């Protein structure tokens, strides 16, 4: 399969075509399922076939060029796919999680009409195609194709229930927010072309790595521009507003796109272009800061949310913040490791929430849930496993990846990376508090939905049932993965030998060593230098205790007989703060007031004032009016009196004589 990587993305594309056709012909659901899920399944098999093939042969990076896509003057872009360790990791979890979610959505979407069902799977397949192109793309523009492709699919899928204004609006909001990010990304691509002459990873990254000083300035600029794209796609601080609204889409969509795959594209891009960020330290710093801030900020909002999917959305933003923090401190492998583990447990959380909502017949408000533990045991247990993972409790996947990032952040602080040691300490501290809050709101969610009595309506109550096997099976698989997922990246600390940290070791080739010159040390300082063993153990204990503290506080707040008193008291004491957090710091309203309204007013001004009044009114119709006016004035010369004319003739003759003379 190695020789023809193009088959992998092609299969979902075929699935998309088939589903469109089936939708048009209004075919039965079973046909659509075969086409939709089948194609993704085949793609997964093809992907793993390729991975196995890749792992057997020694070569680091294999690039397959098919045809020159765009070539004009100095700008040439080939349609080429490449496979290297990073692609392998990404492809692995994207296809696997994607397939599980496809299986899950068979059950979840069963209630829809045939055409809608077909349309849903068509979009999902198109999404898989775009994601695979993004991951496999061997140059920035090709990656951009996938980048915008996934943006389009998220637009289509979020706006799936297009009847509802809110869904359609949030679909549009998602696409536009992505689009703003993408513009930054595209500018980055142009800069790469301008500076390096080509945007193929196998070409411009080695050039940059070869002479870091020369490209330092430009690298920072490119890094920042690309990062703007990343913030758009991975919902970081300025452009995260679309993710919470994206929950309007069906839950499998949220699981697949807004938890596992698309949102991680930003991190993938940063890791892919790690050379750029390493030789342009300022960019790396910005990534770290934005990551850290987003983590703490999103976590703070998640605490007060009552909608189950909104809580998970903000938790995703917060976890993404972690990943960027990891990348920001140079721990690219750790970032990817967290991406993988996060994919597992966040997908599980979403799917679990999906089955809960499915059970509560579409109701998403946690306040009307409760006591589902008894009714939906499998969902509960898998959900609990994922929650433990995300909170960072020891054996679960989350602990290892999050701790790795926090450890590296602390190490960066210690080694005074780029002279900003104090900043990294702050970031580490933010990380720790975010971890505490994460543990708190996750268990808040668990207690509110699964523990206590059912607070919903009566007819909802007896409608409660466990989801069918198509939905619970993926939950169980993901449950297992979120438990054992952590072990692929066990730190050297615990096992004594670095090689066991599979992911670290595996991703080394991606981090190309930099050339000579001072930049080299910076890089070296980050990856090798780690504090003494003692400090690392201390860090491990601190993060573990923080997580446990978070859980206990959540229990005291929401579990047991006098649940809900403490939060109520908290609300009375700080009503303003609560209202602020509940309404997401009014960010949406601020954006609306500051950006969108003035834009409309200015646009209307442009149209009404400039176009119709100034250009049309004054200049175009103005000249017409002037000609008419002069016509009027000249009219008075025609007196109609013959003798006047005779007189003027005579005067003309006189004048003529005088002149000629």
């Amino acid at each position: 399969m190695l020789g023809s990587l193009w088959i992998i993305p092609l299969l979902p594309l075929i699935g998309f075509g088939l589903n469109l056709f089936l939708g048009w012909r209004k075919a039965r659901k079973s046909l659509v399922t075969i086409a939709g899920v089948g194609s993704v399944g085949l793609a997964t098999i093809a992907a793993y076939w390729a991975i196995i093939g890749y792992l057997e042969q020694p070569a680091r990076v294999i690039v397959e060029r098919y045809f020159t896509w765009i070539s004009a003057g100095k700008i040439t872009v080939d349609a080429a796919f490449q496979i290297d360790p990073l692609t392998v990791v990404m492809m692995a979890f994207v296809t696997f999680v994607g397939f599980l979610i496809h299986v899950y959505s068979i059950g979840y979407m069963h209630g829809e009409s045939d055409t809608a069902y077909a349309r849903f799977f068509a979009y999902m397949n198109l999404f898989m195609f775009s994601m695979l192109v993004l991951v496999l793309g061997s140059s920035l523009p090709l990656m951009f194709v996938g980048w915008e492709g996934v943006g389009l699919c998220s637009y289509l899928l979020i706006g799936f229930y297009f009847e509802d204004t809110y869904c359609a609006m949030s679909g549009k909001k998602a696409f536009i927010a992505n689009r703003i990010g993408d513009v930054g990304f595209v500018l980055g691509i142009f800069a790469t072309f301008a500076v390096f002459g080509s945007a193929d990873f196998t070409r411009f990254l080695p050039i940059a790595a070869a002479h870091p000083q020369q490209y330092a300035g430009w690298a920072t600029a490119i890094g920042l521009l690309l990062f703007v794209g990343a913030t758009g796609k991975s919902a970081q601080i300025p452009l995260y507003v679309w993710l919470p609204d994206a929950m309007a889409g069906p839950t499998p969509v949220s699981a697949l796109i807004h938890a596992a795959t698309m949102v991680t594209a930003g991190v993938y891009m940063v890791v892919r272009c790690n050379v750029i960020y390493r030789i342009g330290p300022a960019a790396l710093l910005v990534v770290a800061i934005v990551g850290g801030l987003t983590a703490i900020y999103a976590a703070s909002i998640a605490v007060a949310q009552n909608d189950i999917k909104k809580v998970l959305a903000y938790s995703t933003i917060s976890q993404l913040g972690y990943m960027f923090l990891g990348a920001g401190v140079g721990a690219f492998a750790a970032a990817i490791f967290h991406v993988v583990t996060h994919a597992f447990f966040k997908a599980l959380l979403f799917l679990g929430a999906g089955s809960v909502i499915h059970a509560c017949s579409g109701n998403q408000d946690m306040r009307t849930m409760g006591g589902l533990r008894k009714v939906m045991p499998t969902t509960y247990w898998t959900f609990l496993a994922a929650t433990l993972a995300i909170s960072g409790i020891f054996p679960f996947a989350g602990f290892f990846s999050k701790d790795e990032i926090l450890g590296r952040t602390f190490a960066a602080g210690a080694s005074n990376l780029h002279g900003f040691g104090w900043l990294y300490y702050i970031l580490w501290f933010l990380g720790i508090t975010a971890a505490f809050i994460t543990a708190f709101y996750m268990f808040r969610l668990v207690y509110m939905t699964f523990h206590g009595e059912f607070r919903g309506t009566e007819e909802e109550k007896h409608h409660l049932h466990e989801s069918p096997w198509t939905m619970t099976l993926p939950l169980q698989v993901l449950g297992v993965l979120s438990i054992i997922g952590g072990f692929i990246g066990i730190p050297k600390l615990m096992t004594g030998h670095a090689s066991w940290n599979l992911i670290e070791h595996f991703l080394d080739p991606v981090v190309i060593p930099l050339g000579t010159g001072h930049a080299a040390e910076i890089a070296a300082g980050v990856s090798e230098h780690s504090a003494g063993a003692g400090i690392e153990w201390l860090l491990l204990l601190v993060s573990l205790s923080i997580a446990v503290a978070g859980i206990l506080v959540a229990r005291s707040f929401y579990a047991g007989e006098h649940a809900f008193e403490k939060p109520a008291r908290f609300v009375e004491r700080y009503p303003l703060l609560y209202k602020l957090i509940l309404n997401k710091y009014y960010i949406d309203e601020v954006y609306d007031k500051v950006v969108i309204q003035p834009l409309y007013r200015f646009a209307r001004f442009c149209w009404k004032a400039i176009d119709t009044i100034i250009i049309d009114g004054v200049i175009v119709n103005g000249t017409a009016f002037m000609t008419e006016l002069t016509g009027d004035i000249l009219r008075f010369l025609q007196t109609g009196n013959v003798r006047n004319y005779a007189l003027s003739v005579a005067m003309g003759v006189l004048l003529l004589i005088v002149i000629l003379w």
Partner: protein
Amino acid sequence: MNPTMIPIPSAWILYLSAVLFVIGAIGVLLRRNGISIFLALELMLNSANLAFASFAFRFAGASATAAHALNGQIFIFFIIAVAAAEAAVGLALFIAMYRRKETIDVDRFNILRW
């Protein structure tokens, strides 16, 4: 054969034609009645004929243009013919005008106004 010289200096004839022209012009510009204007016009026309005659007369003397001496007179002949035609049509017009407005006071015919 040398042309017989006539002792009238040609300039005087031109002066006469100029004076007649002025009189005609004044007549045309100042009169209100169509026919009077027309009469003055004929006078102006004749002053022009006179000017032609004076130049024909003047150059008849010079040998160079002797051959064309007659042209002046023929030209006047044609002018008279045309003037006759013009008078006929003009007067017919005045009659038609009179029939319409019971007057041929030129100022009354100003429909061509804006």
